[in-house]
Every structure is written in structure tokens, then in C-alpha cells.
């Protein structure tokens, strides 16, 4: 009696399981998995575009998932290791080499001219997605570093807000004026940028140096770093920048904890596509300008960086369809309007024309800024080597050691150079 019951039960559940396993196969549609990092604003825009694609391609659904940048890489790495990578992967300039050489992402050359129409695609942005001559990522927008500026704070102090010609040499005098006006008690002119990797890179490039060489070594030396830490120590002494304690509140560059958002400084180092996101959490009207020049007339520190790419998973079963989706994403007029310039300035001239008239004020500032860098613009540096991310965290720690007075710029410079070199050498080759 009992056995019979059990058998019936087992049979029944087996049938139920089988039905469950089979039913997806009956569904006619193809599912593409899309993984990207970003916040809700980006997700809303992205999902509007994926809906448009599904509407235009009946039977295809895009299963999108998004998360914060820091969590993203652990998730993508785990899925890739498990042979379960998404079809469409948002990729960063920092990681594209590592994923490409390990076949985590697929080369796209075979789709160019077919599913991918890239005729009016900016050449520098296209080249940014190449690894060893093969195309692995389609840039979703051009971007540059940019200084977020609290316009209201300057207006109240009766000082013109910093513009294109601002140099590090001007900062003490400007800060003295701003501090004398004393309109926002405790607010400093600048954040402490000594631990901000893009600020260091911009400064090095104006000196004719760089962060990394093409073969993945440090392209600066200990003396450069001593000068850098000294620059900020002097600015700290001249009451230009926030205290070490305040700067340490900004642990991860999360926009909510930046010095401008916390009301501790009038400016913050950031990226041109982030004005929208900064404005969303700042009450004062913000604007955007370039990073300071190292002295009047110097330039070439900025570059138009591919803000992020779409790549196709190395194990994707639907590469052609994924390429078609990427093409839709970068060129369909309706999708372009939905996406705006949130991922940077579109790389196709035709898409830019569609987008330009629809932009809000902040997006227009971003578009203007990236299009008119002029003498500030230099060449695109090589993609950062493996372990560059770790060097960036070491820069932050060393900058704190100097700021809190645990070491001097003279000692910190060579020490950081040695540490960075050792970290880069530790990276595993291909």
C-alpha cells in the first residue's frame, strides 16, 4: 500500500518535472542575457531600449540585469568561470584586455559590415575597443574626465567659477578669495585629489608622462610621485583643499560621498557623463569644466575615453543576434533618444544628430564639453595593464598616509613607485 503510494507520488512528480523542463523549449522566443553596471537611471534608459528591440524583433527578449560597478566584476568573473557568461556584456576599458586574451569575450570582426554597421563610427572610439588588432568591444559613448563645479557657491562668493584656463598655480590665490568671502562656512575650494588616479594621470600627461606604458609598466618615476604628493601637501597647507579626515569619508568615489555632494568643497574630480548623476544628488546647480592645467598654457592631459563597451560573451550561443542588438543599441533613433548621453557621447555621427536636439541642460553641457576639448585633448593611452586597479587603491592609501602626516612626500614618492612596480610585475601574463 505504502509502496504503491510512493510510486504514484514519484511518477507524478517526475511527470511534473518533465513538463517543467520541456515547457521553455516550446516557447518560440530567444532570450539574450544582458549584464551591465550602473544605477537605476541607467537601468531605466537601458530597459527602454531593450523593449524597443524586442518590439522590433518579435520573439527575442532581452533579460537584463544590473548592479554596482564593484559587485559587477565578481559576478561577471564567476559567471564566466562557470561557462555561464551573459550574451551581451558591458565591458570597461580597464578589463577588456584581460577578458579578451582569456576568450571571456568574443572577437566581433566577422560581424562588421553585416550585423554591425560602423561606417560613421568615430575611429578613435573604434580603436579603443581593439585588442591585438581585433575588435572586442563597441564603445557606447565617448567620455572625458571633468571637474564638477558648484556654480552657486562661486556666485554667492562673487567669484567667477573656474573655467578652461584654471591651473594648479592659480589655486592658492583663488582659494584665498573664496575663503575670504566666507559664504559657505567650512567649504573648501578643492577636494584632496592626491589619491584620485584620473587626476594623477591627467597631471602626468601634461608633464609628458603617463600612468602606464603599452607593455604594462609604470610610465612615471618616484620623483614624479614626490612632486605630486608635494603639490597637494602645499595646497593643504595653503587651505585650498579639504582635511584628510573629510577626504577619507569619500572611500569609493560613490557620488553620494564626494566632497562636492557633502558640501565640503566647491569641486570634485569626476567624468563628463556623470554631471547628470551628480546633479541628481546636489541641490546647488552644478556645471562642469576641465581638470586644472599644471601651468598656464599646458594641455594634452585629457583624452576621449570609451566610457564603456558592449562585448559578446565568448560562450554565447547567439553571437549574431547579440551583434544585431548592439547595432540597434548604438544606431536606432528611438533607442538613441531613450539612452541620451548617459553612457557618454554617442560614437556614430548619425546618432549624435538624432540625440542632440532632445538633450536636457546637463547633457548639453556634457556634449559641448567633450566635443570642444581643443588643446586640452591628447592621444588615447593604452588600455591599463592587469593589476592597475590594485595600484589605484594603493595610490589612495599612500595619499592618506601623506595627508594624515604618517609619511612625507619625499618618502612617499619613491615608496609608491616601488609598490606600484611590484604590483604590476605580479600580474600573471596571459
Amino acid at each position, binding site marked *: 500500500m505504502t509502496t504503491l503510494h510512493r510510486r504514484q507520488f514519484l511518477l507524478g512528480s517526475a511527470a511534473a518535472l518533465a513538463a517543467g523542463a520541456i515547457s521553455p523549449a516550446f516557447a518560440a522566443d530567444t532570450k539574450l542575457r544582458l549584464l551591465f553596471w550602473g544605477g537605476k537611471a541607467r537601468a531605466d534608459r537601458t530597459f527602454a531600449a531593450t523593449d524597443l528591440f524586442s518590439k522590433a524583433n518579435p520573439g527575442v527578449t532581452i533579460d537584463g540585469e544590473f548592479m554596482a560597478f*564593484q559587485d559587477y*566584476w*565578481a559576478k561577471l*568573473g*564567476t559567471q*564566466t*568561470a562557470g561557462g555561464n557568461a551573459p550574451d551581451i556584456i558591458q565591458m570597461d576599458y580597464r578589463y577588456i584586455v*584581460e*577578458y579578451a586574451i*582569456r576568450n*571571456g569575450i568574443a572577437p566581433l570582426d566577422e560581424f562588421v559590415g553585416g550585423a554591425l554597421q560602423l561606417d560613421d563610427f568615430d575611429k578613435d572610439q573604434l580603436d579603443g575597443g581593439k585588442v591585438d588588432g581585433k575588435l572586442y568591444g563597441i564603445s557606447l559613448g565617448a567620455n572625458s574626465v571633468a571637474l564638477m563645479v558648484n556654480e552657486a557657491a562661486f556666485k554667492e562668493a562673487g567669484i567667477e567659477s573656474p573655467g578652461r584656463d584654471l591651473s594648479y598655480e592659480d589655486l592658492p590665490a583663488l582659494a584665498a578669495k573664496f575663503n575670504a568671502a566666507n559664504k559657505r562656512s567650512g567649504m573648501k575650494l578643492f577636494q584632496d585629489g592626491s589619491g584620485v588616479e584620473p587626476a594623477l594621470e591627467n597631471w602626468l600627461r601634461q608633464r609628458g608622462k603617463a600612468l602606464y606604458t603599452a607593455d604594462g609598466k609604470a610610465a612615471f618615476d618616484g620623483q614624479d610621485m614626490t612632486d605630486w604628493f608635494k603639490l597637494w601637501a602645499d595646497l593643504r597647507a595653503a587651505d585650498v583643499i579639504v582635511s*584628510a*579626515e*573629510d*577626504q*577619507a*569619508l569619500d*572611500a*569609493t568615489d*560613490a557620488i553620494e*560621498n564626494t566632497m562636492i555632494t557633502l558640501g565640503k568643497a566647491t569641486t570634485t574630480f569626476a567624468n563628463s557623463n556623470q554631471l547628470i548623476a551628480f546633479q541628481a544628488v546636489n541641490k546647488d546647480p552644478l556645471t562642469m569644466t576641465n581638470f586644472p592645467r599644471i601651468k598656464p598654457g599646458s594641455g594634452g592631459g585629457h583624452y576621449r575615453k570609451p566610457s564603456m563597451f558592449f562585448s559578446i560573451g565568448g560562450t554565447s550561443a547567439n553571437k549574431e543576434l547579440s551583434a544585431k542588438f548592439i547595432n540597434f543599441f548604438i544606431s536606432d533613433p528611438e533607442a538613441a533618444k531613450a539612452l541620451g548621453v548617459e553612457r557618454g557621447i554617442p560614437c556614430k555621427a548619425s546618432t549624435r544628430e538624432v540625440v542632440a536636439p532632445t538633450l536636457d541642460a546637463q547633457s548639453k553641457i556634457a556634449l559641448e564639453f567633450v566635443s570642444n576639448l581643443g588643446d586640452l585633448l591628447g592621444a588615447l593611452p593604452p588600455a591599463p595593464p592587469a*593589476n592597475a*586597479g*590594485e595600484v589605484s*587603491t594603493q595610490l*589612495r*592609501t599612500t595619499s*592618506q*598616509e601623506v595627508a*594624515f602626516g*604618517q609619511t612625507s612626500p619625499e618618502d612617499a614618492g619613491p615608496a609608491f613607485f616601488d609598490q606600484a612596480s611590484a604590483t604590476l610585475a605580479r600580474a*600573471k601574463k596571459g
Partner: protein
Amino acid sequence: MASAPSPEAARGGSPAIAAASPSRFAAARSKHGPGYLFLLPWFIGFFGLTLGPILISLYLSFTDFDLLTAPHWNGGANFVRIFTADAKFIQSMRVTLTFVIVSVPLKLAFALVVALLLNRGMRGLPIYRAIFYLPSLLGASVAIAVLWRQLFAGNGLVNQFLLNFGIVGPSWISNPRYSLWTLIALAVWQFGSPMIIFLAGLRQIPLDMYEAASLDGAGKWRMFRKITLPLLTPVIFFNAIIQTIEGFKSFTPAFIISGGTGNPINSTLFYTLYLYQEAFGFFRMGYASALAWILLVIVAVFTSFSFLTSKYWVHYDN
């Protein structure tokens, strides 16, 4: 009913019993079969999700696994580097040991004091117990760590309060001199679960001992030292071990408060946080596995040391 083999029978002295055992096993199998069947999900979980990964991580600790490519055996290279050339390992060890050595005794003392206060048969005891236990329930949560960040930031509630006394406090969480201490304070505040266990322990001390002592003229302090404390040592021992292990494992508060960085100047770089950075920040899974095994050994050493010394200070009833 009472057919479970006695220990003597199981050891099997005589040939007769040995000969009988196969059929006995068969019988046992048919009898216990359904039991094992019901345990199957647990076995699958234990072998598939606990023991399996533990053994795999032991293997990975001898490799250069980076998530994306297949692991390559590199002998003891990870361990050699950890012990000879890793300043962050030493720093994270120092932070974690400070955290454990300071926070565990403080937490236990706090828990014991509150348990003694609550053990005086007051009215509404369940309510107080629940209130004091609450932080422990919330303790490991992200929300509390975020709240702590707000409380101890430069213009947080703590400094607003200090301002009443004319003290201008530092930004506790972002100053390397104080940041670890805010995390220790957070840990001590979560004294709820050792407190509950102390409370249960106090209830087990027979009241007649106190009566006898007070007849002999012993004061409160003397009774505490001579009766309460000795009889409570098994519970103290248990709590100390559990809390020490918890302390070594502590991760969430440091992760949230420092945004996963362990800064300022690595002052909150807990061992687990360093391990996490290596694994999920820099994708050195092999190296992180080695770090994990070292932590396991350290915790095991601490625990066995406690057990070894326990016979000198832990008094069991009989």
C-alpha cells in the same frame, strides 16, 4: 524498540556475534533506509555545498586560480608570499587581532553585567531581554553599519552630542586613529547573544548556595566571586570561544563602513576584508584560498589553546 546494538556488541568480541552481523546490517539498512532518505537533502548540502568547496579551496590555495582561466599548480608559492612578502597580510592580522582581543572581553563583560542586572527577578524581564538582544539581531546587517557610519561621521550624532560639552570631536570613522575603535564599539554593543546565554547560566545556579553563603555572612561581592563566577565558568568558556570565532570572522561592518577598502590607511582592513579584496577585487582566488586556510588554522589554534587552558579555570558541576 530497544534493538539498538549495545556498545559491547558492536565491538564484536565473539565469533557468533561477528557471523550474525551481516544480516543485522541488512536489517538495519531496511529499517534506517527511509531515515537516510529523508536526510539525503542534508547530505547533499553538506557534501556538495560545504565539504566539497572546503576541499576544493584547499586545492586552490596551491594554485594561481584567477576565475577566468583554469588553475595552475604553483606549489606553496602563495603561502611563501603571504609569510615573507605581504605587508597587507601583517596589517590585516594586526587589525583583526586588536579587534578580537579588545572587543571579545569587553563584550563578554558587558553581557555579564547586563545579565546579572536582569537576573534579579524584575518585572517585565522578557521585554528588557528582547530590547537588549535587539542589537545582536540587527548587528551583522548592512543597515546598522550604514547607521554607524552616520553616527560617527564628522557631523554625525556623536559629535553633535559631544558639542554640548564643548568638545569638537574628530570624524571618527574616517580618522585612522579612531576608525577601528568605532568598529569595536559596534561589536561590543551587540552583546545580546552572550547575554542570553549568561542569563540561562545564572538561572542554573542553585539558590540554596546563596542562602547558605548569606547565612555564613558572605556579602554580595563575595558571593559573586565565590559562587556565581566559578559556577558560571563553563558558560563563560563557551561564550568566549564562540565570540572569538565570530570576531575573527567579522566582515560586514568593516566592509560597509570603509566601502570595502579597509581605509583610512588600512586601519579597518580586517583579515576577512583583505581576503575578500584579493578574491573578488583582484581575482586572486588561489591566493585568497590560501589566506582562508591560514585563518582557519589560526582560529583552530586559538580554540584549542582555550580548550587546553580550560581545565585550569573552568569548573564543571561535578
